[in-house]
């Protein structure tokens, strides 16, 4: 995964990362994994994160994807690869956990052509 550092006109992955962390914390921070509500949580996380990102910088197309997994000893591995403009486009991934679950959120930002 590329570490895309902030420059004028490029994706600020640190800012996005912080926004996403706050988002996750506010939605599932104190919760325990529950089969019947995990559906709502992932939906809320992606929607709220997307809304926050669009408010910050409108000149990008965004894709936010979120995976929530119960902690039960299973192995999980994720990977992303992107075919895009490496100067203007960027991504960031946030890994979060509490006592009962893992949450991995990836944000991809693709510059809108003016």
């Amino acid at each position, binding site marked *: 995964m590329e570490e895309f550092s902030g420059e004028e006109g490029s994706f600020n992955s640190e800012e996005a990362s912080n926004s996403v962390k706050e988002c996750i914390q506010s939605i599932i921070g104190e919760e325990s*994994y529950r*089969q019947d509500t*995990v*559906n709502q*949580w*992932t*939906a809320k*996380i*992606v*929607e709220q*994160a*997307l809304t926050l*990102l*669009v408010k910050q910088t409108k000149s*990008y*197309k*965004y*894709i*936010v*994807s*979120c*995976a*929530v*997994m*119960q*902690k*039960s*000893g*299973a*192995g*999980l*591995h*994720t*990977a*992303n*690869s*992107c*075919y*895009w*403009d490496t100067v203007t*486009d960027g*991504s960031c991934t946030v890994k979060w956990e509490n006592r009962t679950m893992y949450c991995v959120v*990836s944000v*991809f930002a*693709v510059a809108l*052509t003016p």
Partner: protein
Amino acid sequence: MDEFQLSEETAFVVDDITTIIQDTVETTIGSSAYQQNRINQWTSSVVETSLNQLSKLGKPFKYIVTCIILQKNGAGLHTASSCFWDNTMDRSCTVRWENKTTYCIVCVFGLAV
């Protein structure tokens, strides 16, 4: 999903892409059992090979491919994604694959340039 597409050459054809991804995962993992020390290679191989195949299609799209590989042991997993893009041109597709010991979920997002 709506079928609105400009033309065959410039469209994101979900069926073609699904086939490409399924073949890639089948070739990379196939009937292998989940192995902690190989999983790294598998996820990398799936995303890289998929991306290569997609770029060979020569369509005017930027692509993002994400892959999740999960060991089957009863754990719950839920994924979601939301996109802020051009609804008329941009598309995504998700392929879910499994064998006896492993689940693999691959998402492809295509953004028109």
